[in-house]
């Protein structure tokens, strides 16, 4: 058994940490308050290699393992949830499906730009009527010669309406199986295709500088060449994508918990009441001890899930556990962190309230905590 990262992984952590502290930390609060997505920061994140870490060098990626990628997301999330969302969704939901299921031409066409952080790609699964129940998709695609005609809409799609968004992978119903259930196919819909509109969703509580979109498809004609993989593969592709995506949401929980914990620890040593640092009061010290312990558990669970994936072993159950545990750990940690800051914790200047808000999405996105429990209970045979 070996709990050490490789030298390369440690260096990646150090490099992303320096970058996040140097380039993201100074602007995170400002972008959050302005509810502004930053293409410049996204490009910088691309320059240091935060997009396409698990993609082969042939397509402009870095050819690294999944653990390295997760370390990258974790270190960005330690500073800012919004930028971590851009990276996690950009990789797991944008680049991932194209890389794992795309044809050679599709990979050549899209991946180099996406891996450079010059473009973003969305993943359109959720619809107004189909959230946790992804099988409730209503968007349809009907074949017409060498094209398919898409109609429907998607909601809450990350990275899909930014100035650098290039397109979206869209799941649509393309017929019925023999048992009457819908057959799903994924289409690569590019920005600029006639009938496709992407509208940015504003006034979010969290991830305020991450781009979220509502998408409308009104008789969008998509060429046959833009089918991801094969007709009918859609559902399987979505499930596979979500398994990987869970690890990156887990990394956001872990990194966010670490960031909030560090802020709280620092504050507890500095803030004095009743003539001593508040960290000397056991009530405060015990909260911090709990945070440290839970973060350690979360980290071990998540890294184990990534390690299984890198070893090509079944990792899906641990991915669901990792996503759930890391998100809920961050929930408890941010709650303690704000409490330790007292009234100042509620003020924007102290940054910790941003972690508090950003955490809530992690209980909801890419499968709610309830859905993760459903997944886990199936794996353990309930």
């Amino acid at each position, binding site marked *: 058994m070996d709990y050490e990262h490789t*030298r*390369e992984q440690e*260096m*990646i952590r*150090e*490099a*992303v940490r*320096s*970058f996040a502290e*140097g*380039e993201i930390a100074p602007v995170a609060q400002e972008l959050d308050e302005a509810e502004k997505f930053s293409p410049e920061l996204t490009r910088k994140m691309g*320059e*240091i*290699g*935060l997009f396409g*870490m698990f993609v082969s060098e042939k397509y402009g990626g*870095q*050819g*690294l393992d999944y653990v*390295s990628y997760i370390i*990258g997301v974790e270190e960005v999330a330690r500073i800012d949830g919004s930028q971590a969302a851009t990276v996690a969704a950009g990789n797991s939901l944008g680049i991932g499906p194209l890389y794992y299921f795309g044809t050679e031409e599709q990979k050549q066409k899209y991946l180099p730009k996406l891996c450079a952080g010059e473009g973003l790609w969305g993943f359109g699964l959720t619809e107004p009527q189909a959230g946790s129940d992804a099988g409730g998709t209503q968007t349809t695609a009907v074949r017409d010669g060498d094209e398919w005609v898409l109609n429907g809409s998607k909601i809450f799609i990350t990275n899909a309406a930014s100035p650098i968004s290039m397109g979206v992978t869209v799941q649509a119903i393309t017929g019925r199986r023999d048992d009457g259930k819908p057959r799903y196919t994924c289409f690569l819909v590019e920005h600029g295709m006639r009938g496709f509109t992407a509208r940015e969703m504003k006034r979010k509580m969290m991830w305020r500088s991450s781009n979220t979109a509502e998408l409308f498809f009104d008789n969008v004609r998509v060429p046959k060449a833009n089918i991801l993989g094969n007709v009918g593969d859609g559902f399987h592709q979505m499930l596979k994508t979500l398994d990987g995506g869970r690890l990156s949401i887990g990394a956001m929980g872990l990194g966010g918990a670490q960031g909030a914990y560090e802020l709280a620890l620092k504050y507890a040593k500095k803030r004095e009441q009743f003539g001593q640092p508040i960290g000397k009061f056991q009530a405060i010290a015990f909260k911090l001890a709990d945070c440290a312990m839970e973060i350690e558990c979360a980290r071990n669970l998540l890294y184990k899930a990534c390690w299984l994936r890198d070893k090509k072993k079944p990792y899906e159950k641990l991915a669901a556990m990792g996503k759930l545990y890391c998100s809920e750990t961050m929930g408890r940690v941010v709650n303690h962190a704000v409490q330790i800051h007292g009234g100042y914790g509620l003020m924007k200047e102290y940054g910790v309230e941003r972690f508090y808000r950003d955490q809530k999405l992690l209980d909801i996105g890419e499968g709610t905590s309830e859905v993760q429990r459903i997944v886990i209970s199936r794996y353990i045979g309930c």
Partner: protein
Amino acid sequence: METVVLVKRVPDTETLVRIAPDAKGILLDGARMVMNPYDEIALEEALRLRDIHGGAVCALSAGGEKTVETLRTALAMGADKAVLLTGLESGSADSLTLARAIAAFLRSLPFDLVLAGARAVDDDGYQVGPMVAEFLGIPQLTFAVRVLVEGGAVTCHRAVDGETVVARAALPALVTAHKGLNQPRFASVVGIMKAQKKPVETVTLAGLALPEGKARVETRSVRLAPERAGGLIIQGETPEEKAKVLVRALADAGAL
């Protein structure tokens, strides 16, 4: 153009400093160690000059096994090769011994330019760079905020006492880098992977045939700076009353 950059591994300035039990140094276990920020500036300049003039950049550091990490960071930023000088643990060596060893090694190497940070943020000596130049008998230009290499010479803008002095020296020369010279790049993931394949050569002090020379400076004790005492807020209803209280307080403190 062949450039050597002197880099030092130092504790991050954010690290909480703890004094060692013998009070002769600080405890470094658990501290986050980084490349001295001034050396990052020196390295960045070397990389930029290489882009213009070609050649190779070699990062050189003296220290223990862990120092290799700092050299790998230099390689990840873009240096072509790295040299670790071992057998000289910092703490036991003063700036003079260190500079003598570095100079002895550099004599075995063809170079046009040596770049170093103007200071190291841990012991703030400002000495190693200039001493190396002296031992090598080459010109030195310190506190550079702009560097230009042209026609076998280096021209620097030196920030001195709020003025800028423009100075020029023939190569080979040594330049120390000051804040404001450039904005160092971040090591990228691609750079990190390339760094794993670049060579790190280890050179032991014993192999350098150094003249005898013990450290001449000994650290007697290290103390934390005293905590700043709380200020005094002058109370009073009117300005006159406050002035009176202030004068009395100043007199009591022996300031008047």
